């Protein structure tokens, strides 16, 4: 069908008047459209009445869509489930904190006064060895200042077995005892990770 009122008029082949006042419009392509407004008219059978539609039911009052507002009533706070992840995490954190404290106490007991002061100030300390001092404080990068080269320092990596599960202070206690008492074993296993010029004297 073509667009526009003029074109529509040319396509209409028939217009039939309906009994209620509306019109049936028939188009050339056999389509039909009813137009107009139906008007009440008397029932053609005497004594009968049109069956009218029941009166529409009263419509519900429009209500607002529910929105997220403040919660009313008491909020119950439930105790932690003993198996909950949160509770387990807290327990693990507490255990780690206690372990770190114990490890720190042991380490301090193994340090001499000079090392203790260094540890307090810098979280590191020097350990004297027959091959020159080693500084503990940077995991995987322990500074060794060899006695035979006053201008160079080496970066060594030595760790205790299973060190990932130990508190950090325990790692230093472990390395400290091995360095102080059995330095040959320390240097035997040490992995050399590089060298650099020295910038200051350790003692």
């Amino acid at each position, binding site marked *: 069908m073509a667009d526009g009122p003029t074109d529509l008029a040319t396509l209409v082949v028939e217009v039939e008047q309906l009994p209620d006042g509306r019109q049936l419009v028939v188009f050339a392509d056999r389509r039909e459209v009813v137009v107009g407004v139906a008007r009440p008219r008397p029932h053609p059978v005497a004594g009968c009445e049109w069956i009218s539609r029941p009166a529409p039911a009263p419509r519900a009052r429009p209500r607002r869509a529910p929105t997220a507002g403040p919660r009313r009533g008491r909020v119950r706070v439930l105790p932690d489930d003993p198996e909950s992840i949160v509770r387990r995490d807290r327990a693990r954190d507490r255990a780690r904190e206690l372990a770190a404290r114990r490890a720190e106490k042991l380490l301090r007991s193994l340090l001499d006064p000079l090392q203790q002061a260094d540890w307090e100030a810098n979280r590191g300390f020097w350990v004297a060895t027959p091959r020159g001092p080693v500084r503990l404080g940077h995991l995987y990068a322990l500074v060794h200042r060899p006695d035979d080269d006053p201008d160079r320092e080496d970066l060594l990596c030595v760790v205790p077995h299973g060190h990932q599960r130990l*508190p950090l202070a325990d790692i230093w206690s472990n390395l400290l005892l091995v360095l102080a008492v059995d330095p040959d074993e320390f240097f035997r296993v040490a992995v050399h990770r590089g060298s650099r010029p020295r910038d200051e004297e350790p003692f």
Partner: protein
Amino acid sequence: MMRIIDETGDTTITWAVDDPATIAEAERVFARLVGERKIPFARAAGAPAEEAEKIAAFDPHVEEIVWVRPVAGG
């Protein structure tokens, strides 16, 4: 007293020189830890590391034994 470095910081084992049962138990722990390749250092209580001494056998008269783990290059 023995202090064994571990995940909890350290685990303590104590004995009394006049109590053979506790000494026997400490000796058993000592042997087990040696079997685990852990290293015992003896020291007077609170002495710095430089005064510690590596030991090979259990001595109930040692004030403190600190057990550490073997070391390796990283």
